[in-house]
């Protein structure tokens, strides 16, 4: 049967259901399911997906250790030659699950692993060093191309072929350096590069620097009883009816909403616009996403100085890092103008 493969997918691709089934516990089924069919077609008779593991995205992310353990056992029983997860595109929880399982399989079972996702998926930064991670488009529109690359890499890994560079194979650089022989010595290559640069031509460095983008922790507030607190959320809380039509995914805007005179969020005055989690609980009581009721009580009792009259909200579902940065910069400007001292930011 050639190379034996186990494939991991989420509840959506596993045909179990959407966000309402995101709490689905891990299950192993024999044979292929969903995108596994495309992989199997690409393998032909060179490899066989013996079984598929399906797990809900919320279940995995809320129980990372337990879920990883259970799934690891399922994979161990199969003893595959290669493990494949996803591809997850820009689905954040799915990407984290794919990455975390790949890491565990690679480290505990010493089985080669391949996954795929969009470069801004949080799972990419977290796990790209732990797996061959094919860089995909941000939506499943790129499924065909993603599966072709994942399948090609899996076949190479399963047959012990040498793996080419990230550019060649389409995976994200893992920070691994290998010695290679070059035609020209280093000094000549350096001078060539300098000449190219002087001519204004594009150069490719031989040693890309990692980018560290960290912000030092801000000074704490001295006394919250005197501080003005503001609420910001990526969980998509909005007034009932979503007046600004914030998109349920890939948000292009944020909203600023008054909570002056509102002491409690109810199904009548609030809901979520977020399309990446089951909205039932937030729509019943939006205080579950932004704690307006508690903060209003604390404002009255003096436990906080005051609560800013507005909250700021966007949908953090597949929303690009660039948009998020832009929203936050505008929000920060507004907070500054309102003399806010500190921020509670909630995410779903």
């Amino acid at each position, binding site marked *: 049967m050639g190379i034996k493969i186990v494939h991991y997918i989420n509840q959506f691709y596993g045909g179990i259901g959407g*966000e309402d089934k*995101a709490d689905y516990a891990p299950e192993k089924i024999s044979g292929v399911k969903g995108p596994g069919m495309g992989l199997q077609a690409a393998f032909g008779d060179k490899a066989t997906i013996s079984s598929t593991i399906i797990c809900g995205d*919320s279940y995995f*992310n*809320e129980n*990372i250790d337990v879920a990883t353990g259970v799934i690891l056992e399922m994979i161990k029983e199969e003893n595959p030659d290669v493990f494949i997860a996803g591809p997850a595109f820009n689905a*954040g929880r799915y990407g*984290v699950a794919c990455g*975390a399982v790949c890491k565990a399989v690679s480290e505990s079972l010493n089985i080669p692993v391949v996954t795929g996702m969009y470069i801004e998926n*949080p799972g990419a*930064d*977290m796990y790209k060093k732990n797996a061959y991670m094919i860089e995909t488009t941000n939506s499943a529109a790129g499924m065909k191309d993603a599966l072709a690359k994942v399948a090609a890499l899996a076949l190479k890994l399963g047959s012990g072929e040498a793996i080419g560079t990230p550019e060649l194979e389409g995976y994200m650089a893992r920070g691994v350096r290998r010695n290679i022989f070059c035609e020209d010595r280093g000094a000549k290559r350096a001078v060539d590069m300098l000449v190219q640069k002087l001519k204004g031509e594009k150069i490719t460095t031989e040693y890309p620097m990692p980018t560290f*983008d960290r*912000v030092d*922790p*801000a*000074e*704490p*507030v*001295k006394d*919250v009883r005197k*501080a003005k*607190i503001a609420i*910001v959320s990526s*969980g998509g809380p909005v007034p009932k009816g979503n007046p600004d039509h914030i998109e349920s995914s890939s948000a292009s805007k944020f909203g600023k909403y008054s909570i002056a005179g509102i002491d409690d969020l109810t199904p009548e005055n609030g809901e979520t616009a977020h399309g990446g*989690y*089951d*909205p*039932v*609980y*937030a729509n*019943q*009581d939006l*205080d*579950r*996403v932004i*704690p307006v009721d*508690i*903060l209003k*009580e*604390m404002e009255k009792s003096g*436990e*906080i100085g005051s609560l800013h009259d507005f909250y700021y909200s966007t949908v*953090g579902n597949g929303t690009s890092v660039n948009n*998020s*940065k832009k*929203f*936050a*910069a505008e929000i*920060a*400007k507004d*907070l*500054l103008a309102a003399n806010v001292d*500190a*921020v*509670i*930011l*909630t*995410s*779903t």
Partner: protein
Amino acid sequence: MVKEIERAGFPVVHMCTVVPISLTVGANRIIPTVAIPYPLGNPALTAVDEKELRRKLVKKALKALETPVTEQTVF
């Protein structure tokens, strides 16, 4: 968003359920919460208990905002 708002000088406490993502995006003060669809609640509890749970989490968040940190900290 956490990072960009903190860059402007505000202490930000990030209340979220998937702590590894919060660490990856660079939050400095992190409060782990209940579940993805209801970070600050729990529909399985009575209304009174649920509000008490939320109050505890918010208190923890306020405490975090008063706490000096030099690196990413999960409270």
